[in-house]
């Protein structure tokens, strides 16, 4: 082997070191957790969280050394670093939120944490993959683990049913994605994204085949990010799944899906943008409106948060439709704030669980303000951020996103988005009315007795405030991530659409 090849191989293995750490930890937890009782459960959880934190170190170390690894199939750039860090954080938060929950609900701890780690592995692979087949593999690694997690409380009919619905629709969407990938391969002769972009720029004589493929891949991604009309699985899957997993699905799965979606469509299929932006425009409008309107009618907090997650996917699709570099940066920033806020909101729902019974209807929250002032204040702040109240993360995210869309000339789409934000205030505030102005509801165990959960809620609140009040460093990081992905191994950014 020549020294150059050897260096490339070494670099490749270093590039996937974070993935390796997570994979090894998952296998270790799986083996150690086989037949482990609840008393070892907490230790397995802490070990998983520590492994996720350890994996963040090599991710950080690869900053500033942007290159393609494994023969151009894995991208090591600030873009993958950005998403991998947020995914690791979201996974670690999920573990912290789950610690007490897993014990009280009597779930098998070893398999639970191993599946969370495997899902995190798939998500990181999706964020780093620079090859359509590798994106497919990452997506499946993530999805298979999350299907199993959704049905983890398998003795509950609700959980099993949620898993079945999620699985069938998820596998259905995988079929679309895969067939689309096959057609793109036929039209362009490659599935690596960098050569694919070059091939598209050079033009292809199989344009019909290519457009069919792109359309099918778009449907596949629309399913994964829960865009209308491919959102039907979302509320059922979130409501039936164990609550920490619902949060993981709302944040982790969405982060990874948008990471791959944006890399493929925004960065590499930019040359085809005129063919798909109109579709994304319509889907964004439908997704925001349907998500918000149906959320108005919900009685279950989990189900309401599911529809709220659909609505937020709609806001993010506004950025996809805008298609400028600015909008892509706004999507990255928005996802960061969304991760903190939504994980926090689901953590609060987890905190309402008591003695193995979940309390997740809005009626259960009545009078919470008097019984648990700290928890209520946290919930209020997180819901206000989801509404888009200044100066919290949700507000600044929407501001950047909508401004980028305006700059791209999508005035009507922004009008629809702003109207939707107003509608959404109603159902978020309805929860706060129940918390602070009504009587009744159920008792909650004090948060101080559950330190891991306390830390998770605290981190979510702190993040939501910090990202909103001091947005500059996070916006800069998002911008740097994007520039790095654009400049990687190509002479100049030709992709994001020049309108």
């Amino acid at each position, binding site marked *: 082997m020549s020294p150059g090849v050897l260096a490339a191989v070494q670099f490749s293995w270093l590039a996937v070191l974070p993935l390796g750490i997570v994979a090894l930890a998952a296998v270790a937890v799986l083996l150690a957790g086989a037949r482990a009782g609840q008393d070892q459960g907490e230790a397995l959880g802490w070990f998983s969280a520590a492994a996720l934190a350890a994996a963040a170190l090599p991710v950080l170390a690869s900053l500033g050394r942007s290159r393609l690894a494994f023969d151009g199939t894995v991208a090591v750039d600030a873009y993958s670093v950005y998403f991998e860090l947020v995914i690791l954080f979201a996974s670690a938060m999920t573990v912290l939120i789950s610690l007490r929950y897993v014990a009280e609900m009597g779930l098998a701890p070893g398999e639970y944490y191993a599946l969370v780690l495997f899902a995190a592995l798939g998500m990181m692979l999706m964020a780093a993959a620079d090859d359509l*087949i590798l994106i497919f593999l990452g997506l499946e690694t993530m999805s298979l683990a999350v299907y199993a997690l959704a049905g983890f409380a398998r003795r509950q009919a609700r959980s099993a049913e949620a898993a079945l619905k999620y*699985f069938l629709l998820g596998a259905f969407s995988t079929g679309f994605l895969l067939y689309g990938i*096959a057609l793109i391969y036929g039209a362009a002769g490659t599935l690596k994204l960098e050569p694919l972009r070059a091939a598209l720029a050079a033009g292809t004589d199989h344009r019909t085949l290519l457009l069919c493929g792109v359309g099918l891949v778009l449907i596949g991604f629309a399913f994964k990010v829960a865009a209308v009309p491919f959102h039907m699985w979302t509320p059922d899957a979130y409501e039936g799944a164990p609550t920490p997993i619902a949060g993981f699905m709302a944040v982790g799965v969405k982060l990874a899906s948008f990471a791959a979606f944006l890399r493929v469509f925004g960065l590499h299929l930019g040359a085809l943008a005129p063919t798909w932006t109109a579709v994304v425009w319509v889907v964004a409008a439908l997704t925001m409106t349907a998500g918000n309107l149906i959320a108005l009618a919900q009685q279950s907090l989990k189900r309401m948060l599911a529809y709220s997650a659909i609505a937020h996917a709609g806001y993010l699709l506004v950025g996809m439709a805008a298609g400028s570099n600015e909008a892509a940066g706004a999507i990255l920033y928005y996802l960061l704030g969304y991760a903190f806020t939504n994980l926090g909101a689901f953590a609060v729902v987890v905190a309402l669980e008591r003695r193995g019974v979940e309390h997740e209807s809005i009626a259960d929250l009545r009078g919470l303000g008097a019984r648990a002032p700290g928890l209520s204040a946290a919930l209020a702040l997180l819901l206000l951020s989801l509404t888009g109240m200044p100066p919290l993360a949700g507000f600044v995210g929407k501001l950047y996103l909508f401004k980028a869309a305006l700059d791209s000339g999508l005035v009507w789409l922004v009008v629809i988005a702003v109207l939707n934000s107003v509608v959404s205030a109603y159902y978020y505030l309805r929860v706060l009315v129940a918390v602070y102005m009504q009587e009744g509801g159920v008792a909650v165990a004090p948060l101080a007795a559950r330190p891991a959960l306390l830390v998770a809620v605290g981190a979510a609140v702190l993040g939501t405030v910090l990202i909103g009040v001091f947005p500059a460093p996070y916006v800069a990081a998002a911008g740097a991530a994007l520039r790095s992905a654009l400049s990687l191994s190509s002479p100049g950014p030709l992709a994001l659409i020049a309108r």
Partner: protein
Amino acid sequence: MVAPSYYLALSALLFGIGVVGVLVRRNAIVIFMSIEVMLNAANLAFVALGAEAGSVEGQAFVFFVLTVAAAEAAVGLAILIAVFRNRETVNADELTLLRW
């Protein structure tokens, strides 16, 4: 020699059969079988298009798809068993605990 477009047409037909199967059948196992038909349609397209391009890549992708499909089948059947133990049915129309 059969023209590559014939293979592609056959795979499109298979894919269509799979999609229609998912949409009209009500038994979860049959829905899942239809999804497998969709995946195999993609496999056929990969092989045909790879052969047309004179590259072995298309066939290599099929290996990945096959193994992923097997893992998916294992997870899916496990979920089906869990549902059946709870509900004694795998008919999609009867799974109505979760409804808006």
